[in-house]
């Protein structure tokens, strides 16, 4: 719709696509100039790869320059566009130094600046923390009220998209349309078909605002495919064997501001811990410290009883499995089969193949393909297979559910539960409230490098925990006092 197909990507066309009455689907002629005249703008998933210029103001102006706007007009319009996304006064900031949420807002400002007739957004909140996503959703809601542009939002987390939509067009996994119409009609008519296709429907699995969260097991009943009571029988005694011990750890990069301060955390066998917090709060750094990829400035981190950064690779790989945020950065081989079996002992291969099967990556059909040619969701599931195949003691997951539909989510939760049932511990950095509820029992919240909350999942409603910032802050203060005798 933004006129990038077919000129940018090879593929076959059929039918016609008209934007503002102009034909775009002419395979021979690159349609770009036409789209720009109409004014169609696109915002993509990954905020960082959309920013062209070094400074925010210049980036917002980039699209205007390309349309040959006069200088005076640009000087008026750039601050306007930034203000519209809540970033007034950010003109001289460096775009690479912004948080993911801010970068995505800059990208939206850049697309909004030429006042496009059509705004296409491809999962704009996929990389953002809940607060960043909420801001983007608010901006979209405001744009919708102004009725200045047609907005096309591609999203598989329907809870964000549903309340914003006037019209819903749902696709199944093969790209066939399921239904089209106003949101409530589509939900009533095709709710079941959508669910079957793995689309997240609004409301499912989210606790209603006034209901106090039910105990985890019963809450999961309608969502989960396995029998709920299993968990109580499978789980070994919690915390009986500490797998990860983080002892008064402080960390900073290259003599900069501390990224983590006075962190105390013990994770025992059979525990399922969610690490939550805004982008940049230190979640990934804590994971990397736990895995011995970084060395703490002060304090100690023990994995299976030994300082994690001293572990040689062959021991580390038995103790811990790491699923990185961006699956492509974990791929080391040329084919999926090679990737799955890389470095595995003979007796582990069977389980690895079983995992592939369960996570919808059967090796018969996927084995010979290149890991880089899989779809985003498939890549993520492959990285899960490689991280879990050794049945490591510590499962360290960084945003494991990003880009997954409901089927992927359920298969992941089931596989994790099984490993935890066998005595592993789960430590997952995530923005996904649904994953926190379905797959973890303990929620550790980081803010500015401090642990500001450490509580069982389900005691406090999510919004309450975020709104109740003063309480966590006091906890942080006491933690600090304790560590300085």
């Amino acid at each position, binding site marked *: 719709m*933004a006129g*990038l197909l077919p000129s*940018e990507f090879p593929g076959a066309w059929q039918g016609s696509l008209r934007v503002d009455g102009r034909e775009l689907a002419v395979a021979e002629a690159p349609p*770009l*100039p036409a789209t*720009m005249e109409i004014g169609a*703008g*696109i915002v*993509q998933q*990954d905020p*960082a*790869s*959309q*920013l*062209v*210029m*070094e*400074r925010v*103001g*210049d980036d917002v*102006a*980039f*699209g*205007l*320059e*390309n*349309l*040959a706007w*006069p*200088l005076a007009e*640009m*000087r008026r319009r*750039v601050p306007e566009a930034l203000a519209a996304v809540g970033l007034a006064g950010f003109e001289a900031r460096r*775009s*690479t130094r912004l948080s993911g949420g801010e970068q995505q807002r800059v990208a939206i400002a*850049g*697309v909004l600046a030429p006042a496009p007739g059509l705004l296409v957004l491809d999962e704009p909140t996929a990389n953002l923390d809940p607060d960043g996503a909420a801001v983007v959703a608010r901006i979209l809601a405001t744009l919708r009220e102004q009725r200045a542009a047609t907005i096309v939002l591609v999203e598989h987390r329907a809870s964000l998209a549903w309340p914003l939509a006037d019209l819903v067009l749902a696709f199944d996994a093969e790209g066939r349309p399921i239904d089209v119409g106003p949101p409530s009609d589509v939900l009533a008519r095709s709710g079941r078909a959508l669910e079957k296709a793995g689309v997240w429907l609004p409301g499912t699995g989210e606790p209603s605002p006034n209901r106090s969260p039910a105990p985890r097991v019963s809450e999961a009943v309608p969502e989960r495919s396995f029998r709920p009571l299993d968990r109580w029988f499978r789980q070994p005694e919690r915390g009986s064997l500490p797998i990860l011990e983080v002892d008064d750890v402080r960390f900073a990069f*290259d003599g900069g501001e501390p990224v983590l301060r006075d962190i105390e955390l013990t994770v025992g066998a059979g525990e399922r811990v969610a690490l939550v917090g805004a982008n940049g709060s230190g979640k990934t750094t804590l994971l*990397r410290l736990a*895995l011995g*990829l970084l060395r703490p400035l002060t304090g100690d981190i023990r994995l299976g009883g030994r300082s994690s950064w001293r572990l040689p*690779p*062959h021991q*580390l*790989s038995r103790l*811990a*499995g*790491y699923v*990185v945020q*961006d699956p*492509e*950065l*974990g*791929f*080391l*081989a040329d084919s999926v089969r090679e990737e799955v079996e*890389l*470095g595995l002992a003979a007796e582990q291969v069977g389980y690895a193949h079983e995992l592939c099967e369960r996570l919808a990556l059967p090796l018969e059909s996927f084995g010979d393909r290149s890991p*880089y040619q899989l779809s985003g969701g498939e890549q993520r599931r492959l990285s899960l297979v*490689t991280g879990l195949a050794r049945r490591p003691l510590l499962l360290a997951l960084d945003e494991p559910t990003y880009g997954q539909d409901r089927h992927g989510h359920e298969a992941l939760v089931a596989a994790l539960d099984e490993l935890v049932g066998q005595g592993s511990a789960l430590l997952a950095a995530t923005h996904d409230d649904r994953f926190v509820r379905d797959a973890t029992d303990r929620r550790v919240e980081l803010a500015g490098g401090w642990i500001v909350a450490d509580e069982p999942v389900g005691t406090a409603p999510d919004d309450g925990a975020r709104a109740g910032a003063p309480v966590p802050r006091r906890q942080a203060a006491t933690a600090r006092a304790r560590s300085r005798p």
Partner: protein
Amino acid sequence: MTAAILAPDVGPVQRESLLGRTNPLVKLGIAVVWLIGLGLTTDVRPPLILTLVALIGGLQLGGLSMGALARRIAPLWLAVAGIALANLLFSVHNPDPLATELVRIGPLRITQEALDAAAGLGARVLSIISVGAVFALTTDATYLIDSLVQLARVSPRFAYGTLAAYQAVPRLAEDLGTLRSARRLRGLREWHPRIIVGLLVRAIRHADQLAVAMDARGFGTGRRSTYRPVSWKPLDGAVALAALAILVAALAIAR
């Protein structure tokens, strides 16, 4: 660390300094003319004078701090010392029986001619590195690219594409770190040639996404206007004349 060397951070202090405000093309021109000028002499003094001028200029007029400058240049100076030493020890003049002998340690013979040649070469490389470092540390990348497009008529597609790619450098360094840790967690050695393939795939993917993002915003479709107009200023002329005078003076000393 790697990223800091490859993509130096030019802060507002440097940008607003006298050298920072001087048009980058003027500074680039000065560097080229100085380099050609040094080709006219084999004397050690002119390159050393220009090195000194560049460093003092960077500190006094470029808003650079002694620490920041030293951190960036120190590893390169070590390289210069290595080059000079190698040329001193393995010079063709050393075995020459007609050359003046200075020192003899066992089989090692060092001659006056070898010392002169090594010092001349070392001083020249030193001046190139110092002038280059001061240029890089006082020049805002956006200003350079804008000047290239508006004053030197370089194709915007090439220039802005380069600028955007330049910004991906720190990100690629980060990617490399993640790839290495992924290997470690799979029980493998961190360094392996295979890692280059992963990095290459990432680089191509970044480039691809960036190209799509630029095209989606109408880049390269027709006439552009400019948000940051650049023109020649009296300051540019003054700096150019001063630099030329310094070069002439430095060469005059050599005679």
